[in-house]
């Protein structure tokens, strides 16, 4: 599996979009995989009592998907330096989230890059926006 070199990438490069279908299985199983047992992430009745139509994605899953999106592209030798997530509209089953990214900074001393990432769902709009910083070989 190849890892991108620091010299391979330029500011303005875009990462190909990734569409993630949001299902009840993804939401509840991912919440448990992150050990987040808040009932609103696996119990529809609780989510509905909060005014949402169904269980909704927990923050640790949004973080995971944002990180994965960038390292899928960079390759496995990339070292993650920072992950910043701002949350917007909830992800609930039946939506599709499209994740997009663009390189916005390069730091020659650390050989690190900053990628701005957004995850927008097709129903309610922006679910997450933020940045992932990685160091490349």
């Amino acid at each position: 599996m190849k890892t991108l070199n620091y010299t391979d990438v330029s500011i303005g490069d875009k990462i190909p979009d990734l569409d993630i279908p949001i299902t009840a299985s993804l939401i509840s199983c991912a919440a448990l995989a992150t050990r987040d047992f808040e009932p609103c992430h696996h119990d529809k009745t609780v989510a509905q009592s909060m005014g949402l139509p169904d269980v909704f994605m927990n923050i640790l899953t949004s973080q995971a998907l944002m990180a994965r999106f960038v390292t899928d592209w960079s390759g496995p030798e990339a070292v993650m330096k920072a992950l910043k997530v701002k949350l917007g509209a909830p992800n609930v089953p039946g939506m599709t989230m499209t994740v997009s990214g663009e390189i916005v900074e390069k730091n020659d001393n650390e050989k690190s890059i900053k990628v701005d990432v957004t995850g927008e769902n097709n129903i309610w709009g922006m679910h997450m926006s933020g940045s992932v910083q990685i160091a490349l070989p």
Partner: protein
Amino acid sequence: MTPEQTKAFEEKVYTFVGKPIYKGPRRGYDDVNSAMIRQWCEVMGEKNPAYVDQDWAEKSTRGHLIAPPAMMYAWTQEGYKVASEGRPTDGQVEMVKFFDSHGFSGSLGTNVDQEYFAEAKVGDAIFEESVIESISEQKTTARGVGYFFETYAKFTNQDDVLLGTQRFRVFKFIPPEQEEAAPTNSDTLEIPTRVAAPRGQDNKWWWDACDEGKILIQRCASCGALRHPPRPMCGVCQSTEWDTIESSLDGELFSFVEMHHPKFPGYQYPLLVGVISLAEGTRIIANVVGCDVKDVEIGMKLKGKVERVDEKTILPQFYPVNN
């Protein structure tokens, strides 16, 4: 809350700032292990061999498997008792209960920022030390009135190596009453629509005609001046008598913007909003559709069609006239 009550509340709530959330560093129930990593990767669709492929990892620069950095906060989560018994009391829970008891019962995680300084390996113990770092002044947001609080966490391993830090920001707010009273049991995901235009005494007739496919322009019954948008009095002669003419929807683009940010649910992007000079002489604000943004220019000829844009709204939209 009266200003006095707010003052009393704030005096108490700000005493939580600086308080540790746990008594001393708290060790994750499970040390970093390949079973939890593999399960996490399976669900997240994570195929990175640095996390799951022992053979690959041994030959890699690192020489060993690592835990996904984004799992950092997962290792120290409380676990199933959150669902079965409720979250056990700690410094943060105490503060949250204090907010709740004063009506600030809404909770919304807004930001999580993590920085990583070393990668966790299988076998590492993870320790979390957290503090309530700050509470904002009272803020009014689209969600309601409340306070942002921020926690700061440090994650270390058994050798006291700093693995990473985390800032987690939460908005605690008074939920608007109508939302509280509207728990849903509807299974359908409501597709958002555009914000419907308010219809009042002075403009309802315009929207009613629009619903029937006609774009009307107000005409002063006294001096004949046309005016749009609808209003009760002629700006030329101050007469309040008027009738209407129907627009041909032939127009020319006077000015336009492309709406980028923030994106509103219910609108289609790219979203072009134009000011269109109609052949009759008045201007109208409407979407310019059916063309690429880069082909739009001021002065271009447009033709309007009255169309249904979603379940609730019918609007004139303007298309370029191809010569």
